[in-house]
C-alpha cells in the first residue's frame, strides 16, 4: 500500500502530546496503521514528551504509594508479550483503531442514506469539538460540492476519490480547512469508504443538499 498524503505535523505533535481531541485523533491513529513514516514521527514526538517530562521538577509521591501499587499488582496478571494477535476475526478493511469504535463489518453497518449516491455512519465519541463519520460514496459518484466552516479531515479506507486538490487512495489523508471548496468523486472501480471528521457544518453550494443538512446533521 502506497500512502502519499499524510497528516500534517501539527496533528501528529498534538496527537503525541495527548492534546488532540478524540474525534481528530481517530483518523490520525487509523492513518498510523498504514504508515511507517508517520509512526516514526510519532515516536520522535513522544520522545519530545519524555524529554519535557524529564525536565519537570519532581513532586514526591505519598509514602505508601509503592506498597499500594504492589498490592494491586498482586491481584493482576501481566499482559502477554507483544507476539499474540487477536485480529483474526476483524474485517481487514478497517484499521484496528477504527474497529475499536465501529465494531462491525462495513457491510453490516446500518448505513444512513444521504441522497442516492452517498451514505453515512455516524461514529460516537465523547468530545464535543468535532464529529466523526464514515462516508460511503458509490463508485464514480460524488459528494455535492461543499466548503468548510472549519477543518475537515478525510481518511480513505477503501477505494479512492479525487477532488480539486489531488487523488486519494487507501491510507491517504486529506486535510482541508477554511474556505476551501471541493467535490470529492469516487473512483470508478469500487465504492469509496472514508472516515471524515469535521468541526463545523459543511457549506453546500447547491440548494437541495443544504435543505437536507439539518436532517442528516452533516
Amino acid at each position, binding site marked *: *500500500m502506497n500512502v502519499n498524503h499524510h497528516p*500534517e*505535523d*501539527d496533528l*501528529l*505533535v*498534538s496527537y503525541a*502530546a*495527548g*492534546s488532540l*481531541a*478524540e474525534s481528530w*485523533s*481517530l483518523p490520525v491513529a487509523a492513518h*498510523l*496503521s*498504514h504508515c*511507517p*513514516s508517520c*509512526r*516514526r*514521527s510519532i*515516536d*520522535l*514526538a*513522544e*520522545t519530545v*514528551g*519524555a*524529554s*519535557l*517530562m*524529564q525536565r*519537570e521538577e*519532581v*513532586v*514526591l*509521591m*505519598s509514602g505508601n*504509594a*509503592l506498597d*499500594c*501499587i*504492589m498490592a*494491586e*499488582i498482586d491481584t493482576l496478571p*501481566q*499482559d*502477554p*508479550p*507483544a507476539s*499474540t*494477535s*487477536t*485480529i483474526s476475526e476483524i474485517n481487514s478493511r478497517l*484499521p484496528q*483503531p*477504527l474497529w475499536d469504535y465501529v465494531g462491525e463489518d462495513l457491510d453490516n453497518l446500518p448505513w444512513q442514506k444521504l441522497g442516492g449516491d452517498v451514505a453515512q455512519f455516524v461514529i460516537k*465519541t465523547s468530545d464535543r*469539538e468535532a464529529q466523526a463519520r464514515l462516508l460511503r460514496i458509490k463508485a464514480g459518484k460524488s459528494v455535492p460540492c461543499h466548503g468548510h466552516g472549519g477543518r475537515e479531515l478525510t481518511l480513505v479506507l477503501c477505494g479512492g476519490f479525487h477532488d480539486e486538490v489531488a487523488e486519494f487512495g487507501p491510507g491517504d489523508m486529506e486535510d482541508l480547512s477554511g474556505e476551501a471548496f471541493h467535490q470529492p468523486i469516487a473512483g470508478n472501480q469500487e465504492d469509496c469508504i472514508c472516515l471524515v471528521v469535521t468541526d463545523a457544518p459543511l457549506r453546500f453550494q447547491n440548494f437541495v443538499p443544504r435543505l437536507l443538512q439539518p436532517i442528516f446533521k452533516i
Partner: protein
Amino acid sequence: MIPELNTKQGDAGGVKFSHSDLLARVGTSQDREAFATLFEALAPRVKAYMMQLGATPDTAEEITQETFVKVWRKAAQYDPNKSSAATWAFTIARNVRIDTLRKENRPALDPNEPMLVPDEPQTPFQEIEKSNVVDRVTSSIAELSADQREVIQLSFMVGLSHQEIANRLQIPLGTVKSRLRLSFEKLRLSLGEMR
C-alpha cells in the same frame, strides 16, 4: 539552576542499570526490585507532569499510581530496542491522563496489529542509542527558537489544543499550526530524520 538529578541509572546490587534495562527486567522476569527502582526514579516526574497539566496533587498521585500499575502489566510488551523506558512511560502516563482527566477514549494503535504495514529500514533517529535518545531530543528542543519551543511546550506541558494555543497567545489558528509544523520539522532535521 536546578541541580540535575541522576535519573538515568538505577542501582541494583551495586551494578548500574539503565532505565531501559530495568524495565526490560520487569517484563522478562517480573523483577520487583527493578520495578521499585524505576518507580522511585520516574514516578515523582510523572506526578509533577500531571500537576503541570492541571491535575490536583491527589489526582496526580492517583494517575501516577495507575500509570505504574500499567507499566507493570504491560512491561512484557516493552522492547528496549524500539524505545527508551522514559518514552514508553510517557505514553502510558499520557493515556491514563486522557482516560482520567478528559474522560475520553484515546484512539490508539495496537502495535500487535498484523495489518500494520511493515516498517522500512532503520533511520538515523531510530539508530540513536535508546539510553541517549531523550538527551539528544532535549538538546534539539534547546535549539528551537523561543516561539517554536513555546507551542511545543503548550501542547505537551499544558495540554492545549491548537485553538486554545491561539487564544492563549492571541495569534491566528493558522499561525499555531505553521509554528508547530516548523518546530517539528526543525526537530526532525536536527535528529537526522527525513519526512
